[in-house]
């Protein structure tokens, strides 16, 4: 078969020259990757390429050099060594993860993974002693090496080399070159500015346009009136009414203002102006009250929308999201972050708008009144603005730190509450208190540093502002003496200057608020934007009648990069039959159950139910067809009947009682004071582990799934409770495809078929008797357990 390289991303162009210079026919290369270490652990720009016959490893270093005569500096590759491995000798390639590095190893005694499976060979047996170390690289390169391995396997099998090779994800933002934290999201955090986050937050107001418009208009009116107020109360009153000689005094001329207001005496004029001042104040107060009232009506609903979006997003997200976030941090996102945003919009944002408009308005009026004096005032502003900006940055850090410590304190409280029995059992109350006190101390230290900064920085800024005001007073006074400025104008100016500093001062305090609000919004959007790893397929397949046959075909899976938990697991469970899964802790048993229910997706291979890949099936049908009974039992806040009905809310009371009886739960439920209406979950009736387990079995019986997964369902039970639950489970299993995972092999002895899992792969299958006869892994595990039981009974 002739192999062709049809994809441009298969061999990066910058490697071609380096390979050619090292004597490799680069045009024949089918695939190439860039790794980062030499075999001895030293740093290296290692190019690894493959053609139809060989694997080439080129060690060297990329250097940026200035070539004489060239206009720009260029990247040049300095090759050190080329190692060539013929592909026919590389039939047993595999990667071994160490801590933060990986090794690519070839074991010539092993064939390709696929061939192993066909022959039923054990891939996890480890080294044959004839292994060769091919490549060493850091974990970051694991994804590339995985693709390379797939290409080599394809070539060795005579298939199209790039068959099923995913395109290399674009890892870097094309605008700023920043590494995408999640390449599949293509969201560059650096190019997403805070203003856009804020504008997105503003988008939540779209449902309240009328109220927002009302708030906006009243705010504008308030601001305009506030800007005009000093002019009327000072400049107009002093210069136009009170300053002699008032032409109106002698009665032969009419003052323009009196004419305008329609009054005929000075006293009436003064009274009218004062009344105007009072009226303006009243209108400002009323408008202030009005917009805050409307805002207070709107904001709780906007926050409600936001919290709903976060909560909805959390329901949509995959299990992996929850395993990567601490509960305290998630709870903070729903409650504290949303509250931060709420208070900013209630107490911060409206006043930002008012103050910004006021600042512009005041400055405009000052320029109009006396531009020379206005320009003197403006020289003080840049320094003040710079200081405020600096403070905003520092305060942003302090807020972030406080948030982090708060999350950790929440986690500690949660630990202390949930682990109270363990704490008391080990008499560690003092130590726990000490830990919390230590964290509290850190919290206090952060608060103190924030307060210290505020108490020293702000007075210094105010002092500077005062000095500015003194300079304006001095210059203005001289202008009054010289007659180039009226007294009223100077007093109005000084009043405006005070008002000009006001918005600046406010913006300085609100800048912390703004930083905190955007910080919170950033975290909130992180949850809302997080992409669910498990999604409903575009055209989900709905099976007419689900029978329940399960096939795992060469399933590979890893929770963390380069740490495979399942390594090519292959097994079949016929519909309606029971398969017992046996293996040590950490062998991958529960992972397999999670994959069948599609709580995670396989990394490689496939899981099929009734010959349909679970990734193509309707998630709802799949999950409603699978019942999982595990040792992690969660009862939701509510009554017992609500909890049993959780899987099927329309179940009748008779069905619930029947399910409870089947699960051997009815007797203990009726013995409770409120029987089926007993409240359980957080703050409810305290139930024992066995009782909770029986409720969870009743819940699964109500669900009536076609496939049942029993994941160590009785692991934490005493023998008597286990006996009761085992009966319930036996009832549950009849007629369903069952995968029973258990530590205690005695509970699985009667299973129709057993599979032994070791290091993420199936190593033995058969009935209890056949496996005992085989004297392999199962026999070993069974013997160890029986020996253990003998020791216990002797004691």
């Amino acid at each position: 078969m002739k192999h062709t390289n049809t994809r441009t991303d298969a061999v990066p162009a910058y490697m071609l020259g380096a390979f050619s210079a090292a004597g490799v026919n680069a045009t024949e290369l089918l695939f190439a990757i860039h790794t980062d270490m030499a075999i001895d652990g030293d740093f290296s720009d290692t190019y690894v390429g493959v053609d139809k016959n060989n694997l080439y490893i080129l060690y060297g270093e990329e250097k940026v050099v200035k070539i004489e005569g060239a206009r720009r500096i260029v990247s040049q590759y300095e090759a050190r060594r080329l190692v060539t491995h013929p592909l026919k000798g590389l039939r047993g390639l595999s990667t071994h993860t160490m801590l933060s590095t990986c090794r690519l190893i070839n074991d010539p005694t092993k064939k390709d993974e696929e061939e192993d499976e066909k022959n039923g060979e054990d891939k996890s047996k480890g080294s044959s002693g004839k292994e060769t170390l091919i490549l060493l690289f850091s974990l970051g390169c694991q994804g590339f090496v995985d693709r390379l391995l797939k290409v080599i396997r394809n070539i060795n099998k005579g298939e199209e080399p790039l068959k099923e090779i995913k395109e290399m994800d674009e890892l870097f933002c094309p605008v700023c070159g920043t590494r995408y934290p999640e390449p599949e999201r293509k969201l560059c955090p650096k190019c997403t500015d805070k203003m856009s986050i804020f504008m997105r937050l503003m988008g939540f107001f779209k449902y309240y346009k009328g109220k927002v418009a009302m708030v906006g208009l009243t705010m504008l009116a308030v601001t305009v009136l506030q800007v005009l107020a000093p002019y009327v109360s000072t400049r107009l009153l002093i210069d136009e009414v009170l300053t002699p000689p008032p032409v109106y005094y002698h009665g032969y001329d009419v003052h323009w203002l009196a004419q305008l207001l329609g009054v005929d005496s000075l006293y009436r004029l003064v009274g009218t102006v004062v009344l105007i001042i009072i009226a303006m104040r009243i209108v400002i107060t009323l408008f202030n009250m009005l917009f805050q009232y409307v805002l207070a009506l709107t904001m709780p609903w906007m926050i409600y929308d936001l919290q709903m979006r976060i909560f909805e997003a959390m329901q949509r997200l995959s299990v992996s999201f929850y395993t990567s976030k601490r509960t305290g941090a998630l709870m903070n996102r729903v409650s504290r972050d949303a509250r931060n945003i709420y208070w900013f919009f209630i107490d911060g944002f409206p006043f930002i708008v008012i103050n910004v408009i006021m600042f512009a308005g005041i400055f405009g009026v000052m320029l109009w009144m006396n531009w020379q004096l206005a320009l003197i005032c403006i020289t003080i502003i840049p320094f003040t603005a710079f200081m405020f900006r600096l403070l905003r940055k520092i305060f942003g850090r302090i807020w972030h730190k406080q948030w982090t410590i708060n999350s950790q304190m929440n986690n500690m409280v949660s630990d202390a509450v949930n682990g109270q029995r363990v704490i008391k059992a080990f008499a560690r109350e003092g130590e726990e208190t000490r830990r919390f006190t230590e964290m509290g101390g850190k919290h206090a230290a952060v608060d103190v540093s924030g307060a210290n900064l505020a108490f020293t920085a702000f007075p210094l800024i105010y002092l500077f502002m005062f000095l500015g005001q003194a300079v304006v007073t001095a210059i203005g006074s001289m202008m009054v003496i010289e007659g180039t400025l009226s007294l009223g104008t100077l007093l109005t100016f000084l009043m405006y200057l005070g008002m000009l500093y006001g918005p600046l001062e406010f913006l300085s305090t609100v800048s912390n608020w703004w930083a905190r609000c955007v910080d919170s919004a950033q975290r909130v959007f992180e949850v809302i934007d997080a992409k669910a790893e498990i999604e409903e397929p575009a055209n989900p397949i709905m099976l007419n009648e689900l029978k329940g046959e399960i096939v795992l075909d060469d399933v590979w899976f890893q929770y963390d990069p380069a740490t495979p938990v399942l390594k090519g697991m292959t097994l079949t469970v016929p519909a309606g039959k029971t398969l017992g899964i046996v293996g040590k802790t950490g062998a991958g048993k529960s992972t397999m159950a999670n994959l069948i229910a599609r709580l995670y997706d396989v990394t490689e291979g496939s899981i099929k139910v009734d010959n349909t890949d679970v990734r193509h099936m309707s998630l709802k049908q799949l999950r409603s067809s699978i019942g999982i009974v595990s040792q992690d039992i969660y009862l939701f806040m509510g009554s017992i009947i609500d909890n049993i009905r959780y899987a099927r809310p329309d179940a009748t009371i008779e069905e619930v009682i029947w399910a409870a009886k089947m699960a051997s739960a009815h007797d203990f439920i009726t013995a409770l004071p409120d029987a089926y209406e007993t409240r359980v979950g957080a703050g409810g009736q305290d139930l024992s582990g066995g009782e909770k387990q029986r409720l969870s079995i009743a819940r699964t019986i109500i669900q009536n799934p076609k496939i049942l997964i029993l994941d160590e369902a009785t692991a934490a039970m005493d023998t008597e409770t286990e006996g009761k639950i085992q009966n319930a489970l036996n009832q549950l299993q009849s007629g369903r495809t069952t995968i029973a995972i258990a530590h205690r092999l005695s509970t699985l002895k009667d299973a129709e078929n057993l599979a032994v899992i070791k290091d993420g792969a199936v190593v033995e299958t058969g009935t209890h008797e056949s496996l005992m006869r085989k004297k392999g892994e199962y026999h070993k595990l069974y013997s160890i357990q029986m020996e253990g039981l003998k020791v216990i009974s002797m004691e």
Partner: protein
Amino acid sequence: MSTVDTNLDLGILDIKDVDFYTAEGGFMGVKCKGEDYKHVILRRIMPIEHPLAYISVADHENKEIGILRDVTALSEAQRALVEGELNNRYYSPTVMDVISVQDKLGYVYMEMKLQNKQGRIYDKSCAIKDVSRNIRTLGDKTVLIFDVDGNRYTAQIANLSKQSLKKLDAYLF
């Protein structure tokens, strides 16, 4: 409070009984008490506090052969072999300097000056997700940083400059 019985056989290896070598294929092998293990795995039992003490030596099936109490007690050649193997497994460049730290949309971007075990100094920028988990302080001395690719970096707080510490400060808990 009673203590546990420490007179158990912990499998501490006598350095006179062990002979490490580079086996065919590039792996580390060891000859120990008449046995020749061609591919051994070395693991630090206390990787932070005692990187060169209490090293678990296991065969390729992860069965522990014994524990090396002190690598520094080995001969120079043996020590170089063992340290080289440990460095490969525990590849974690040292953070010499934190050039910049930026928090964007829940991810922290860090530019650092790193030094690998061979002494080479180079710049690296990385993205860190979920900082409360992936920037960890161990006691008051060490900071471990894990990036989105799974790479790890180690910083000794005492060796960092004041500026670097200031940049990291918000994440050190």
